[in-house]
């Protein structure tokens, strides 16, 4: 009896599914932007550090891109072009796959696997799945199955990038005996984050040390030494611009490019965090702006995200390699100790060594990638930071934006000049290498 009832149910289900609609599912670039925005939002909530965030951006984009490249002759697979990556599985011959849909699903699913608060992505994912399923269940299911299959393939490749191993590696040990060494900074005095990020497998560059920058000026707090001059410069600039007030252009620039995912604030008896997107996420935001402005189609949009996020991810690996090599102390520590014990930087000092400036390296690399994709002298209005209460800024080119991002770290009082100048060059050299070595279209 039970069996019979089950059979009946199955038949009814089959009939009802047969009766379902078969509308085409159309996926727009906006759908992809939304998916990227969604994962960005969850990353802010979950508090991922800038290097880790760069990894979370890159892999889902690669998964999506690979599916599109398979169905589009203008684009070439990254297989053989990025480290240890092999061809994705081919879809079944008769599968009714919507490649764009598959790509979007792969992006969402990879993203879900990488963040912590899966519920937040799942809710978003489920509402889309329901909608697509109602439109055309067969195509949806086939596309989804393929998207997940590719995500699995990309994940097993990703899992060999040493990320998991680095999670259990030793925490950074502070050495307070050497005055040049980095020390935790106020107010949270957090331990140095991601001391082993240089052990993460890069995408394009051959090793973390490939773009090893020139060392910073030798440490010396002797007045007149090059290093001291740089410390003093940070202090003097800070004094000058804070005297002009919060409305000054320099302070505005510092705040616009703050991109600190976790600023801890004490107010009254309350402690809380103000959270913003990371430097990488800001450039992902610029990628969106450029894609929209150029009316890029779905595939070009994904291509732009992929190339830019790969450049950013490699930039973090390269930069973090140097950070824990030179292990240089932050201006805040030295200025408080030697010049002015009540000085506070305009921005909160992030919890890792100073040299080179992460934002400079990443901005340098991202700007080269974006210039490669969208061309030079690409003017745009950057509204990425509006959700965080910051205004729109206008740039004439990606390079100009990167230069501003770099110098913003000096205005912010968190980097010396060498970290900014050398950092932006490190990023550009690396970015050039990435675009030269990636043959994507």
């Amino acid at each position, binding site marked *: 009896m039970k069996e019979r009832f089950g059979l009946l149910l199955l038949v009814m289900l089959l009939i009802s599914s047969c009766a379902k609609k078969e509308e085409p599912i159309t996926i727009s670039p906006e759908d992809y932007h939304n998916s990227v925005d969604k994962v960005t939002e969850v990353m802010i909530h979950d508090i991922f550090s800038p290097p880790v965030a760069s990894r979370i951006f890159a892999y889902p984009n690669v998964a999506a891109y690979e599916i599109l490249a398979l169905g589009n002759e203008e684009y070439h697979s990254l297989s053989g072009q990025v480290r240890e990556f092999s061809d994705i599985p081919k879809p079944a011959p008769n599968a009714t796959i919507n490649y764009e849909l598959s790509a979007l699903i792969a992006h969402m699913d990879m993203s879900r696997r990488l963040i912590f608060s899966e519920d937040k992505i799942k809710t978003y994912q489920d509402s889309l799945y329901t909608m697509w399923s109602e439109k055309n269940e067969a195509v949806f299911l086939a596309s989804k199955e393929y998207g997940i299959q590719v995500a699995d393939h990309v994940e097993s490749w990703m899992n060999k990038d040493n990320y998991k191993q680095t999670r259990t590696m030793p925490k950074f040990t502070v050495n307070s005996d050497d005055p040049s060494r980095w020390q935790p900074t106020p107010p949270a005095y957090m331990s140095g984050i991601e001391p082993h990020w240089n052990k993460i497998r890069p995408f394009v560059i051959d090793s973390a040390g490939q773009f090893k920058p020139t060392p910073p000026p030798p440490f010396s707090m002797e007045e007149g030494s090059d290093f001291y001059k740089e410390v003093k410069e940070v202090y003097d600039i800070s004094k000058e611009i804070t005297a002009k007030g919060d409305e000054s252009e320099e302070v505005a620039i510092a705040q616009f490019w703050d991109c600190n995912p976790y600023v801890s604030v004490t107010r009254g008896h309350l402690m*809380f965090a103000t959270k913003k997107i990371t430097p990488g996420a800001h450039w992902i935001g610029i990628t969106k702006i450029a894609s929209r402005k150029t009316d890029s189609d779905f595939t070009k949009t994904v291509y732009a995200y992929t190339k830019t996020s790969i450049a950013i991810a490699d930039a973090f690996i390269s930069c973090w390699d140097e950070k824990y090599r030179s292990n240089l102390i932050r201006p805040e520590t030295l200025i408080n100790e030697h010049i002015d014990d009540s000085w506070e930087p305009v921005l909160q000092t992030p919890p890792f060594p100073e040299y080179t400036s992460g934002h400079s390296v990443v901005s340098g690399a991202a700007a080269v990638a974006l210039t490669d994709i969208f061309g030079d002298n690409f003017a745009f209005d950057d509204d990425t930071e509006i959700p965080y209460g910051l205004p729109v800024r206008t740039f004439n080119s990606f390079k100009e934006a990167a230069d501003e991002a770099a110098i913003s770290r000096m205005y912010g009082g968190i980097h010396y000049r060498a970290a900014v100048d050398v950092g932006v060059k490190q990023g550009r050299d690396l970015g050039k290498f990435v675009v030269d070595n990636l043959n994507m279209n």
Partner: protein
Amino acid sequence: MNRLITIIFGLLLLVGCGKQGDLFKNPDPSDLGITFTNTLTESENLSILDYLYFYNGGGVSIGDINNDDLPDIFFSGNQVKNKLYINKGDLRFEDISQSAGIEGNSSWNTGTAMGDVNGDGFLDIYVCAVVGINGFGGYNELFINNGDNTFTESAQTYGLDFDSYSSNAAFLDYDLDGDLDLYLLNHAVHTQNSYGKYDLRYERNYQTGDKLLRNDNGKFVDVSEEAGIYGGINAYGLGLAISDFNLDGYPDIYVGNDFHEDDYYYLNNGDGTFTDSLKTYFGHTSRFSMGSDVADINGDGRPDLISLDMLPEDEVALKSSEGDDNIQTQKLRIKQYGYHYQFTRNMLYVNQPDGNYAETALMSGVAATDWSWSALFGDYNLDGHQDLFIANGIPKRPNDLDFIKFVSNEQIQQKIDNTKLVDQEALELMPSGNVHNYIFEGNPDITFKDRSSQWITKDTLMSGATAMGDLDGDGDLDLVTNNINGSPSIYLNTLDGDGNYLKLKLRFGGKNTYGIGTKVYSYHDGKLQFKELFPSRGFQASSEPVIHFGYGAAQQVDSLKIIWPDKSFQIVKTPALNQILTIEPKNTIPFDYKALHQAPEPLFVLEPRNLGLDFTHQEDNYTDFNREKLIPYQVSDRGPAMAYGDLDNDGKKDIFFGGSKFVPAQLFVQKDSVFSRKHINTFATDSLKENISAQIADFNQNGKMDLIVTSGGGDFFGKSDALLDSYYVQNDSTFTEQTLPEFFQNSSVVKANDFDGDGDLDLFIGGHTLTSGFGNPTQSFILENEKGIFSLYDGFDQDNVGGMVTDAIWDDFDKDGSMDLILIGEWMSPKFLKNENGVFKEVQGLDAKGLWQSIIAFDIDADGDTDYLLGNWGTNTKFKASQEFPMKLYLDDFDSNGQTETITALEKNGKYYPLETLDGLTSQMVSLKKRFTTYESFAGTTMEGLFPKETLDKAKVLEVNTLSSGYLQNNNGIFTFVPFGMDLQVAPIMDFVEGDFDGDGKTEVLAGGNYFGVKPYHGRLDSFPGALIRSEEEVILGNELGLDFTKKSIRHLETLSVNNRKYLLAVFNDDRAQVYKLNKLTLKP
């Protein structure tokens, strides 16, 4: 049916107004005529966001303001008017606030103190205020009692009209000139963004700095600067306790500071100045120090101290609140910024004869009472022992981790920045901290029993300032708390004649009419009770200015010794019990405070020049917790090694100190009367190894001493040469290294013995840990000596050991004529290995799994056979273990990433919880972040909730069921574990040494200890002063013997003979070695 019973039961509970505990009932205050409520009104510009101490509450004072022998109650309100209630008898109170003129004019009132400022015999009232921030106006007010139930506000006249950020004040006569001076406690408000250096405290700031005010003929003069009182911008003063802590006749001051500023321990120099001596006498303090109180809790005549903090007892609150610093931040704060060790929990400081404090809150059971404001010691059950009441609660927990990390950003960030409007809804997202008040019954042995659900009813109020007094005049102690947003709580003691008491009203005369600062020693049944009269106690409050003693069923008090503030005293003989005794100075004679400090001549006297043994051990910067993030304690800090033997073959024994990473070993050779350092090339070239244990003996029997050194350090791993033990053979006068069987592990102990009776010395070497493999089996082994060559002895089964060996002794424990072996270690029971024709077999089968550190043979019960003393971790710790609920260590690759994790689990209310926080666990197992996306979802998760049963079942589990140090008592060859008394449980006992230290011809054992290799959550196990163990009953602490062991971590104790004198050598980890002359002994030839 069941339901009916429930309903009836419920109805029964509801019967009667107010609430009833076994000891205290809480009548509805309005039934008594008390209608005060400290209502807080939040506004756009005033809330917890604008003023950090918005929830600290008002004050309360109890005292008889109209001299009708009935104590009256004064409440200060933060934003509401102050209230004064006259006690009309029969628990009726009359509100005379308006006519009395004490309602006050300040915007934000805080602490209050009663004292007879002008010496006219009537209590005046001082009310503190926060003025100058958040639009708060007014000034601290002094209401001078006109003697007719009216008061005249006279702060300006007296020079006490401060408009600063005052939280509390206390009257005391610090200069003993006969009038009352005032200590004014202020608090900082600047953001805690940066610690700043400790020396900020030297720069005075009017608003935030504390003040000492000297009474010069009715005018109070700020003498803070000249008196050595700090007044910086970083002192968040919340706790204030006055007592003659060092018993020299002059009142001293303990100030508890919130946040990162150290507490201050001002010792009165007697010349008008004070010296902050915190670091000298306190090994560590509470971190977010709040209220405090003083009482002699162990009947030794010395005042003890409690300082409150905010560690939750409840597992959910504990795991969802921000706790202690991580270890690196702590190091930074201490080494770079100059602050002292501070930890987030209540601290109970037991005053020691040498001026140090033994901090025992954990073993005393009072460490965790959540968001605690006020502590008041009192003999609430009149049994002769001090009990403890702790008032607590906060409307919102600002340290809730979900709020800090997740909720705040999304909910209130924009609103705070843009409109400054406090979004009530967002504040609502912070969990409430309406924890019940605590009451503890004091036991004779410095432990306290939590009686919160028996003596009082568990409330959900936010109670702060608390005052004590006998409101109904029945001789027992009642309590009044000032609550936030509610009526005060009246705790009426319902003992009614159960237990005898005495209440003393002191009438000193002069300007100090109430005799503030008077000490009373009470003697009954051979017991001593000691009290001082300093009415400002607890938090923002002053209690009835009387001295109160409970005596239980005792029928007679032998005598009272009253020492007046002018250092004169009188004796009251056999006062009748159960009365109010008014005492005035009569037939007084001078009191000699020096008599209190007359210690017998110390047995141990520090050798000023250490006999030339200028050795300071330096621990390297390696932090185990950076690599092995979840291990319960460090393993890298077990050095240095030390061996005592005649290495230069001149008939005088020399001392070898092992090296630590990058610091070579050192040899000190004994000359005629001192030691001098000798360079040995072989030792110097091997500077990498971290030596843990060493033995000097002529192993190859060539007439010259050789040396065996074991290596560990917890840092080197794999097949690193630095892990190999060393064997240095002496030929001529040079040492050459010879090989030993290879074992790559952290070794602990080496002990030599000719166990096979073939005339040469064989070795036992104990294995402690494998680096990065905490808890995994290491190998301990016996090396058999064949003509100076050591080889692995196969009569010893390494699998027999199991556990992390720390110490061993060779002894024929079964007296069968062959040498047996006893091993001890961590996560294991002591192992008795019987030598049966050369094969070692475990006998006894003891079940006492401990964290054993040291063992020595000693006939402690003087019955003629050998017992074994065992040093364990002690019970003054966050670890918790019993036979029923052992502490567990789970070992497995829980997240399948190829790396073994160790998870320590402790029992609480019958369930096991991980010791680590979510952040701690995820620092090693990031995958848990997917499962626990909020702290709330993790808090309260048991081990079974953390991992599926199958996972836990397949994990290796190590256990500890005994934390007490003690001894194995030999009863005809059967050994039974007997724990030592509380004195020997305050910290790990790391080493023992035997000898006749007191020259009585008998042998005693000296024990030393303390250990610091734990995370800040555990604090610092620093309170053991060493002890001389004469017998089961007779244990004398080192601080009575001249030993300076407190706050130092012992590794080795050794008796030395130099130039026909006996000495004691104490070797510490990361500190300078000490040499003591044994005062009573010269060496008998």
